[in-house]
């Protein structure tokens, strides 16, 4: 029963959403709208679960003095301080919550992402080698696209932006489209397997 009931619920829910897509009947659409509201509530609960999991994990790390446990203290203190600020003082522009977002989170998050530029440059210098014909094609295409996407490309040769556009619009789209079809077909197959109870990994077994 512990397995059969979830499988039955998955089947009923999956069939309902499959059928409602094709049936504009008022009763079915009204039920669909109501279920969407339930789902949004469940997603909100999932957020609470995530927060509980985060707090528990870091609290365990502190209690057991695991590696880098000091950073867990910073994590939990930051989390609770910002939470309390937002709940007690609100999050309108000018509030303490908004201040911590604008002057702490934004610069920190932007800085973390900015590091990518440096590491990409270093990695490209060390590893981007024309060792094979395929690597050479990749290298040439990358150079053309990088130049064509900035103003200097047109200054070097007026056709460079057009060549960049061709690379992005033809071979790149062809490859992307093929991947999209593969992913979509795989998703349909997996969805059908879950609805029919053939796939049970989502049940933890």
């Amino acid at each position: 029963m512990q397995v059969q009931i979830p499988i039955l619920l998955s089947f009923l829910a999956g069939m309902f959403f499959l059928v409602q897509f094709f049936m504009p009947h008022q009763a079915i659409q009204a039920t669909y709208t109501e279920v969407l509201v339930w789902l949004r509530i469940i997603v909100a609960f999932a957020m609470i679960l995530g927060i509980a999991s985060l707090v528990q994990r870091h609290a365990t790390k502190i209690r057991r003095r695991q590696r880098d446990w000091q950073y867990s203290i910073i994590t939990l203190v930051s989390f609770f301080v910002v939470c309390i600020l937002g709940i007690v003082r609100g999050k309108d522009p000018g509030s303490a919550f908004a201040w911590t977002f604008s002057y702490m989170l934004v610069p920190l998050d932007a800085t973390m992402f900015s590091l990518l530029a440096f590491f990409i440059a270093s990695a490209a210098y060390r590893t981007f080698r024309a060792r094979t014909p395929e690597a050479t094609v990749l290298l040439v295409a990358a150079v053309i696209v990088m130049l064509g996407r900035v103003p200097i490309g047109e200054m070097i040769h007026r056709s460079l932006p057009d060549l960049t556009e061709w690379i992005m619009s033809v071979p790149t789209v062809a490859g992307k489209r093929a991947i999209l079809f593969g992913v979509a077909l795989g998703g349909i197959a997996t969805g059908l397997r879950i609805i029919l109870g053939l796939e049970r990994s989502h049940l933890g077994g």
Partner: protein
Amino acid sequence: MWERLVSIDRKWIFLAIGLAVALPFLFSWAISPGPIDPRARNLYDYLEQARPGDAIIIAVDYGPSSMPELHPMATALVRHALGKDLRVLLMTLNPQGSLLADDVLEAVGAELPEKRYGKDYVNLGYKPGGYLVVLGMGDSIPKTFGTDATGKPMADLPIMKGIRNFRDTHLVVSLAGSNVVFTWIIFGHEKFDQAVAAGVTAVLTADIYPYLDTGQLVGALNGLKGAADYEMLIDRPDRAALGMTSQTVAHVLIIFFILLGNVGYFATRGRRR
């Protein structure tokens, strides 16, 4: 000597990149962004077709990490829309997007004091649920959000008059540095026939091209170049246009390092054999 070409310490590379990006901003070295991307022009033209009073939704679906590319897009789009007397509804599927939306409205609102919050533009804030929110908006935007980001009920917002769902909006523009943009295409455009446009980071550019070809996106802004293009189209060059100089220098520098590494590699390859 050739061995040195393949073993430059990365601290010099980091320094070069740092200077390449920082100096143009410090000295305001601006260059023309070059030819306008036709996809950016398509988005601009689509907005130009809107009539005063039409509503557009701008989904600020990004966080601080994508701000350099996407924040200028949001600012330029809001400037364009308010300049055409459109109603601008900002919302987000990203928890960090709500405060960024406030930032955009604060900046553009200061430039246009005749425009009023709640009457000409509004921030509906963040709602969890991703595609569920989009599906809910297709049915009823007031019911999905309930209040704006400040907690004001929808019924008290003059901007929401006559706006029930996607049918009452001219366009949705999703600004995203992640797969969220596909949520709008799949659930906004395909289910509700809503016109959708995208503003994405440069790494996502190739991913959205198939949707542009099929007409599922009416237009797109791709990376910092897209933001700079839109600023040129509305005749307000700003941070994106300035950033193009940094991007140009950085790209040329990276290509230089790649070529340097390859020259050194081929020069020393014989010796390694």
